[in-house]
């Protein structure tokens, strides 16, 4: 499905309006108003329980919203599912599941297949290319339980690449991975960005956040700040994002100092 490129401006890839989400009466996200322009690589930063994963899940239509709305390319998510790719947290699936690495990457193609259709040769070639990009092609026929954490993460990334989407949501792709995987992921994120894709990446590590992302979303139930990294990665903003958490505050101080 190709999108007609007309003279009219395409609606933004992602738009939140007055979004509120609560679990059991406890609000997790409150009054989120946000517009993410095309081709941005956005790091979502905030303390535990700040609603980072919830924001991604809400954007993907996985949660019941208490108020507000989310639009993907100007439409409700249901109408633009094919344009959305997803990398869930690694722990969210059972890695003993009886599937191979190739099977998992092919799942990324399911959105492009009709009912009863099996992945074609073309789908397999795409999946193979994606595995090659994350340097996991030699593992294509491995059972997924035999992979290390970093390899698992790369398989998920390959699956997201196979989705061939325009906007990607990634939940902590850097959590618990080795250095080689980390740099491989960063390379791919920048490649995707260069192709005009929009990426929202939940990230938990402050010192690397300012290197990896060109814009940051500081989140703690509300949007504390959103903008280019150099404008947002400031001590006072980070402090108000992380509240009074001392250990993290020293990390913040450290990170800001490194930057200057």
């Amino acid at each position, binding site marked *: 499905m190709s999108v007609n490129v007309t003279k009219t401006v395409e609606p933004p890839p992602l738009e939140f309006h007055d979004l509120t989400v609560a679990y059991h009466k406890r609000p997790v996200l409150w009054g989120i108003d946000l517009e993410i322009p095309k081709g941005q690589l956005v790091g979502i930063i905030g303390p535990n329980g700040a609603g980072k994963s919830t924001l991604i*899940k809400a954007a*993907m*239509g*996985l949660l019941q919203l208490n108020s507000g709305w989310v639009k993907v390319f100007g439409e409700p998510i*249901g109408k633009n*599912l*094919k344009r*959305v*790719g*997803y990398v*869930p947290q690694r722990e*969210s*699936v*059972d890695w003993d*599941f*009886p*599937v*191979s690495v190739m*099977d*998992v990457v092919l*799942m990324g193609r*399911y*959105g492009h*297949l009709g*009912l*009863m259709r*099996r992945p074609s040769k073309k789908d397999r070639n795409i999946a193979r290319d994606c595995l090659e990009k994350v340097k996991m092609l030699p593992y294509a026929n491995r*059972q997924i*339980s035999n992979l290390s954490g970093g390899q698992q993460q790369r398989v998920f990334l390959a*699956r997201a690449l196979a*989705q061939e989407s325009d906007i990607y949501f990634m939940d902590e792709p850097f959590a618990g991975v080795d250095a080689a995987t980390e740099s491989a992921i960063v390379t791919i994120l920048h490649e995707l960005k260069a192709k005009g894709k929009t990426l929202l990446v939940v990230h938990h590590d402050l010192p690397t956040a300012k290197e990896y992302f060109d814009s940051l979303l500081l989140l703690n139930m509300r949007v504390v700040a959103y903008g280019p990294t150099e404008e947002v990665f400031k001590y006072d903003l980070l402090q108000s994002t992380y509240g009074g958490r001392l250990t993290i505050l020293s990390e913040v101080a450290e990170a800001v100092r490194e930057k200057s």
Partner: protein
Amino acid sequence: MNELLPVFEWQQHVIAPWTTGLKSTLWIVLMGFFVATACGLLGNYLILRRMALVGDAISHSVLAGIGVAVVLALQLDTATLFIAALAAGMATTLIIEIIHRYTRVKQDAAIGIAFTSLFALGVILISFKSGKVHIDTECVLYGEVALVPLENFHLSLTPALVGAIDKLPMSEVYLRGNELVMAPDVVRMGFVALAVALLVWVFYKELLVSSFDPALAFSLGINATFVHYALMALLSVVVVSAFESVGAILVVAMLILPGATAHLLSARLPVILALTVLHAALGTLLGFHLATWLNCSIAGAFVVAGMALFLLAWLLSPHDGLLAQWHRRRNLKLEPPEEISSTSSAGN
């Protein structure tokens, strides 16, 4: 030695059922195979979703459905029982979901609450009317496999069809003159098993991705919640069609045993599904002859044979079977990495 076990005679216990007793043998074995296949295929997905006991729950709460039908003074014919039990199955699924979602109670405990309550409700409802209806609880639990071969389905055929069917194997069992004679329970279960196999084949992608990663399924436009309820509805249908003739215990066992055995032998879902059907066939055959030999409950023998196959798979599985593990441990020459070996030898 006064035998605890009857003497095993090849002719009497293995050959005779397939010659002189072919009629009842064929229907019973087919019934067992259909039940085990339908249950086993669905059971694979229950195992993968860590919901193995939901089948147990649904098979018990069927009694509540029957109870409601009894109190409403409905005819207890097959269609009524079917609808009542299907409703009970869906109710169980919903109650488990609701308890799990809106309280702190975890899913396994929610299953325990849902099916015991519905089972008890069924007991109460039926006891209201116990004088007027006959419900054989033994039959609910253990089934009446021996009644399976009752052939009361007759269908007249055209000569051309008779000629064609005559060439099929064992046609003397189901072809009498120009009439097709079948055991209706077996035919119905055959259709259910076929339907399950077809659905698993048609919706392979949807079942796979919604079992492995429900969030990804949603993002691909596959409604994982719908898949869940559809799976539960199908499970209810299978349980209801099976339990009347083979009993709840066989149903529950067959939901888990074939899939669990197949999981020991392979790590590829398509292979696992094929092995499940193989386990269903072997378990049924072995179980039938076990029952003929010991003159015991046929449904019970099916389960015991299935269990024996499970143990065999555990012993012989090429990757993590007991023998393979033992062999690997014997042949394993662990060579510690350089730096570790040097430090440990320094320590010694």
